[in-house]
């Protein structure tokens, strides 16, 4: 018992000693994490001496909600989709940010005006604009290649397995678009029970052909391994596979789902000061622009846009791969954070039981 006691004291001391001058950033893993390490963490550590640890999650909102509810917050900065940031802010779990405290843009524009619409909310500072798109393996389609959301659901014309995320938010809209609902009426439709039924009925038509993914890197893995021929994927991940790794993939921009991600700091963060410092640094003009050098996500600061040039290989222009490119926005579905803040829980319930039932 005595040994145990000494040992545990020693270890507790160790855990405590490790708590100094670091910040734990919970993000989405894979190629996106790499871009954040390069653009935010390394310069941040170089400038401040604070060590930034990256922790990968399928969707950082999930561990954050659980940590808040259990009263056991271990992360300092979380990279969330805006809907989750708003919901958690409503529930009083997050620290609030005053735009006046954020650094002005490189061109001197105050932060409040520098950030694009919807990327600054009470508790969240936007970092990227990104899209969920359909990616496919060109080598699997000798003749006509798929080009629309409807083709994704047409397993007769384009046979092969499909990949979809295990979440209602980035799945139901796709079913409705394929079923003929215009992009701007998606939420009106989803707000009615009939609309939800309609989405699930459409999903039923391909349920047997779907492999469900959870982490953002999985769809590219499934596509590369030939487990699926077509999958929805975060646009930066497929960019990384196509341009970074030279895979024979292509993107269908039709019906892309456009979202804003943001950094938040939970109220009970173990390293609150370092966390705020990190958020201020990472959402500065230059880091946001640098981030786009490694992955095709758009910066949320207007002042960063002119600084975005080519990919890290020095030759690939980033603009055609950005989700915010005008021609990619024609049929895009814009995320509605308030809708999801209210409906995510119940649609997730429905989705889960639909998925479990065979």
């Amino acid at each position, binding site marked *: 018992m005595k040994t145990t006691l000494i040992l545990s004291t020693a270890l507790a001391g160790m855990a405590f000693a490790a708590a100094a001058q670091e910040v734990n950033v919970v993000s989405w893993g894979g190629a996106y994490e790499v871009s954040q390490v390069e653009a935010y963490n390394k310069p941040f550590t170089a400038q401040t001496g604070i060590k930034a640890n990256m922790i990968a999650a399928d969707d950082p909102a999930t561990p954050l909600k659980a940590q808040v*509810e259990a009263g056991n917050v271990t992360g300092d900065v979380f990279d969330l989709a805006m809907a989750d940031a708003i919901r958690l802010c409503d529930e009083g779990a997050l620290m609030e940010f005053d735009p006046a405290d954020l650094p002005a843009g490189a061109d001197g524009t105050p932060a409040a005006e520098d950030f694009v619409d919807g990327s600054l909310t009470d508790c969240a500072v936007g970092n990227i604009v990104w899209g969920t798109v359909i990616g496919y393996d060109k080598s699997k389609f000798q003749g006509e290649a798929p080009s629309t959301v409807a083709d994704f659901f047409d397993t007769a014309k384009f046979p092969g397995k499909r990949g979809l995320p295990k979440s209602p938010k980035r799945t139901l809209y796709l079913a409705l678009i394929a079923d003929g609902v215009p992009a701007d009426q998606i939420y009106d439709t989803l707000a009615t029970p009939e609309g939800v039924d309609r989405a699930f009925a459409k999903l039923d038509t391909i349920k047997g052909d779907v*492999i469900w993914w959870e982490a953002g890197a999985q769809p590219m893995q499934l596509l590369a391994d030939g487990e699926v021929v077509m999958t929805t994927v975060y646009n930066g991940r497929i960019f990384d596979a196509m341009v970074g790794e030279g895979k024979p993939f292509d993107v269908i921009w039709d019906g892309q789902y456009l979202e804003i991600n943001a950094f938040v700091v939970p109220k009970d963060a173990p390293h609150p000061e370092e966390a705020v410092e990190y958020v201020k640094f990472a959402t500065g003009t230059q880091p946001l622009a640098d981030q786009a050098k490694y992955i095709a996500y758009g910066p949320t600061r207007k002042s960063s846009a002119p600084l975005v040039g080519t990919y890290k290989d020095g030759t690939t222009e980033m603009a055609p791969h950005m989700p915010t490119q005008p021609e990619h926005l024609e049929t895009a579905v814009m995320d509605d954070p308030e809708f999801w803040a209210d409906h995510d829980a119940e649609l997730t319930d429905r989705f889960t*039981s639909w998925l479990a039932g065979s």
Partner: protein
Amino acid sequence: MANALDPHAAITTTASGLTDGALRTADGKPLARALARSQSLARRRAFLLVLPLLAFILITFVIPIGQMLQRSFYNDGFSANMPQISAWFAENPRGTEPDEAAWAALAADLTASAEARTIGVVGTRINYDVPGTRSLFTSTGRQVRRGIEPPYQAALTEINQDWASPRLWSAMREASTPMTANFYLAAVDRKRAEDGSIQQVEPRQQVYVMLFMRTFWLSLLITGITFVLGFPIAHLLATLPMRKSNLLMILVLLPFWTSLLVRTTSWMVLLQQQGVINDILVWLGVIGGGQRLQMIYNQTGTIIAMTHILLPFMILPLYSVMRTINPSYVRAARSLGATSWTAFRRVYFPQTLPGLGAGALLVFILAVGYYITPALVGGSSGQLISNMIAMHMTDTLNWSMAAALAALLLAAVLLLYWVYDRMVGIDNLKLG
């Protein structure tokens, strides 16, 4: 060291202690009492050795599980945050139409809860019983924070017609006391109707019973396959000379000692469409390049990987029983004219039953609770009840539901554990 408390010392010295008819120890105490004392001291000593561990297990294991299971029947998400309407429910029996006092209490609670930012918790609690109502609470909360005027019934139903729904009021009544059996009902696909009676949930929501059935059926199937594969191996190992069997035993023990994640990874590498097995099949011409088999991310993947992982748990107990079977019984049966099949069936096999029982129960118990392997290779059709518990724990955060499912699974496992203890005895559990 002749100690009066040592039973041996006591017995050896009694011979000289005969004075008044009663047996006495050397120092004159009655033997019966001395023996009893030394017995109870020995018991206490033995118990003291076990006590630290017992306390440790109680604190780090038994209490945490008990505390978690408490959530399956205790949820104060509504009652703690909506005190006034909860009080109204306590005063008025089921069947009372909500009067204006009730509506006023509801409005006051909603306002307070929205201010305190607990409205999400309240809505989530009701949403468990009436799917689709969380947004009713959160959106109404946002509106009442801007102000609400009496009459409250009219004001609330104007915000949303759903506030008049009897089903909603019935669910709020249910939730107005923290104790509830609803999560257990939900765990067996049942719910309480507006009048309080119990009925099945809609077909599209009936998933848990199916998942329990699937878990038990797959575990049974895996137990069966491990038996079919494990029996010949155990028999071979038991009948080979020691030196050879020890060598072959390594082939059984190596997987047993290899990390679960390593073995699961191996199966992913082997079974995927561009994986080794499909490559070999295509290369052999068994299947065409376009018809690669889907062996992973479905039930097949779960069954193959779990069989591989659990097979040593079947082989080891079978082997240790088979080692003790005397081969002359089978020879005797053969010499009496039995065919080899009859000798096996009537003489050899019955003697292996204890090992078979031990192995089968152990494999089944472990299979029923599996989580990691189905999560990685199971796709959606290969998910077991443990995966559902994990999902409610980490994704939907419906912890009461997770606890109710865990309680049912735990009950099943403990029952099997009890059977195992009866049949095999926990002391006979062997490793390696």
